[in-house]
């Protein structure tokens, strides 16, 4: 959280009745003046709005380490406003906006612009990610220090979409950002091994005649990077880890005590490369959907903490970039508004993770990795009221027409997913109420 960015919270107060904090016994929460004022059973307090939350779960506001908001440059796909509205609808109170915009977020000017747009939108805190290299070209370090010192206070740096494949450049970046407690978030993809890659290389790619994206192209970069991070004593974050082999490498690095963290996307927890048999580009994503064995390994690793965080890699694309043949389609899926439901389906309903674990992987740990001090806090009295109220009993088919994101490229269209965000609070202000976006800029 940026102190400078603090909006005065509105004066509306809320009394949430019978909500299960992190899945615990039902309690009431009183939110006022931007903080959690009181927690208890049968709270006798006055509030402007009372919410019956019977059966619902309270989690700390979700934090996304990996969001593509597309602004500046591709406002036809998403804007900071629509992207943060989607985030709020998904229960997020902070998102990290990836740097691959046009222009690239590789200067203080661009990261400040994105940060200001987030402030103006008001639906969710927007923490810009800075590019590691100028223009994401992997040739020359961007002014990392200037981006850190800007109003955007950047601490996470990534060339996401591209891999910092030059070993020397990666080493220097890891070393350099230590000066301001930064972290490099690597999109691990060996470029030569993935030339012409269209999908996971395996049984299905062989049958479909689509260029393969082998697991080793991800794993070899992660292996190199954890060794580099250990060598220079730096923090490393691995973006959207997608294979069982990557899990093993991260597990090994952690066992050495190295400061390595990793994220997994909701779609890699649920979908497999079998979906590609339809040749429907809605399943085209980078890294690609992997095998059922990979999915099981990722779930297990998220459960045991080897993988620290769920990150959406929300990647909006206009319809025409998906309404075409597979080879020319854009890579990526929207994911903010379905993330928590997919996590419930794959991790909670399977018994792998309880709600406390969900709070840890979707709020506490990502906030810690991004060094967002105002997010990922405990749900307790006196803490900032960044909260999500989630109804896990809901069942329904995903309807992209109801999305707040400007794009519709979801792989879950028509799929029955559990759970629904009932309300999201950003410093005590409702950004979502009764499942609908709340007007920002004034009380409901």
């Amino acid at each position: 959280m940026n102190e400078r960015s603090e909006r005065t919270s509105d004066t509306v107060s809320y009394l949430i009745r019978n909500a299960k904090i992190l899945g615990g016994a039902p309690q009431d929460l009183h939110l006022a003046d931007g903080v959690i004022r009181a927690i208890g059973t049968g709270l006798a307090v006055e509030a402007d709005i009372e919410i019956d939350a019977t059966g619902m779960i309270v989690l700390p506001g979700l934090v996304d380490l990996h969001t593509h908001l597309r602004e500046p440059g591709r406002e036809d796909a998403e804007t900071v406003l629509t992207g943060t509205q989607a985030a709020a609808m998904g229960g997020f109170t902070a998102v990290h906006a990836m740097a691959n915009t046009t222009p690239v977020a590789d200067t203080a000017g661009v990261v400040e612009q994105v940060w200001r747009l987030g402030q103006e939108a008001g639906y969710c805190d927007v923490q810009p990610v800075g590019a590691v290299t100028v223009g994401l070209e992997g040739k020359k370090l961007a002014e990392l220090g200037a981006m850190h010192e800007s109003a955007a206070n950047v601490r996470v740096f990534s060339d996401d979409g591209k891999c910092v494949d030059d070993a020397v450049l990666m080493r220097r970046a890891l070393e350099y950002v230590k000066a301001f407690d930064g972290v490099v978030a690597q999109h691990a993809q060996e470029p030569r091994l993935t030339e012409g890659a269209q999908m996971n290389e395996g049984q299905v790619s062989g049958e479909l005649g689509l260029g393969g994206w082998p697991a080793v192209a991800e794993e070899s970069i992660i292996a190199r990077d954890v060794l580099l991070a250990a060598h220079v004593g730096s923090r490393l974050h691995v973006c959207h880890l997608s294979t069982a082999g990557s899990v093993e490498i991260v597990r090994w690095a952690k066992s050495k005590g190295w400061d390595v963290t990793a994220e997994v996307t909701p779609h890699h927890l649920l979908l497999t490369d079998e979906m590609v048999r339809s040749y429907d580009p809605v399943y085209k994503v980078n890294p690609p959907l992997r095998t059922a064995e990979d999915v099981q390994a990722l779930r297990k690793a998220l459960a045991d903490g080897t993988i620290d965080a769920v990150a959406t890699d929300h990647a909006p694309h206009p319809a025409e970039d998906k309404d075409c043949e597979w080879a020319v389609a854009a890579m990526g899926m929207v994911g903010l508004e379905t993330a928590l439901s997919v996590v419930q389906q794959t991790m909670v309903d399977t018994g792998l993770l309880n709600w406390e674990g969900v709070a840890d992987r979707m709020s506490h740990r990502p906030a810690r990795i991004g060094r967002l001090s105002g997010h990922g806090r405990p749900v307790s009295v006196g803490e900032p009221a960044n909260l999500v109220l989630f109804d896990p009993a809901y069942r329904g088919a995903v309807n992209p027409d109801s999305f707040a994101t400007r794009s519709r490229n979801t792989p879950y269209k028509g799929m029955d997913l559990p759970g629904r965000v009932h309300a999201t609070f950003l410093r005590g202000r409702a950004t979502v109420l009764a499942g609908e976006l709340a007007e920002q800029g004034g009380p409901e």
Partner: protein
Amino acid sequence: MKRHLVSAADLSRDDALLILDTAEELAQLSGRAVKKLPTLRGRTVVNLFFEDSTRTKTSFEVAEKRLSADVINFSAKGSSVSKGESLKDTALTLQAMGADAVVIRHHASGAPARLAQSDWLHGSVINAGDGTHEHPTQALLDAFTMRRHLNAGAGNDLAGRRVTIVGDVLHSRVARSNVHLLTTLGAQVTFVAPPTLLPIGIENWPCEVSYDLDSVLPKTDALMMLRVQRERMNAAFFPTEREYSRRYGMNGIRMAQLPEHAIVMHPGPMVRGMEITAEVADSPRCTVVEQVANGVSVRMAVLYLLLGGAVFADGPADTAPRTDSVENAQ
């Protein structure tokens, strides 16, 4: 039969035999003075070619005309990297033209599948080769040719026949379609290639794999040589053209290792001196020219069956079918 022919895997054994038997009946036509049937009169077939392929396009066009269809040749020249007019817009245009069937050749794997699954057009989609995915009518004409030589007769399949397919399996749509169809027809398929030119996961395909051509030749009833593009050696798939042809090329000495009855096939175009020497290509056991003729019969059968030709009637068409060309530079 299904409405589309996108993959050879879509064909049941009965479907495949029906096509082969129908093709045999239609082949009788080519021996007669009047080669046209009125079967598809008034029906519109579009040849939608995103990739140059004179032989496949010509083969389809001849087949369509012998069935008296109205033919529209729609060539959309785009590269595999630039997008140009979208497949969707092209499809909507063809739908507006009233296409009853679209024969599509595309450089992107899966493009025909996209057309068939979309609601962009309602006609039948016939895959005339998509990327490195499939080329089902090629597999049908190959099976037709094999059956004539190895188990001739209506209703017969290829049970127990041993087919060896040699070359760039990784990039071959012909290999993929053939393994599906030949397996459906009961044949045993063996792929022979350097390991670099075999797809990952091939151990789970319904076929055998060998890296040693000489050991497989004596156990072969039909040998199919695949084209190997010279450019592949630039991506380190094999060291040199010479080494490739020494290890995997077909020559006179190797031909002598084949059983007496075995045939040598090639989907064309051949790269003489690379995967096949002139001695083999020009030998009487080589069926390349025959395959071309069979291609027309098989494609007539596919069009006839997919478009549900009303009567299998004899006689000449009384009106000349039209041919229109649309150039759609992208």
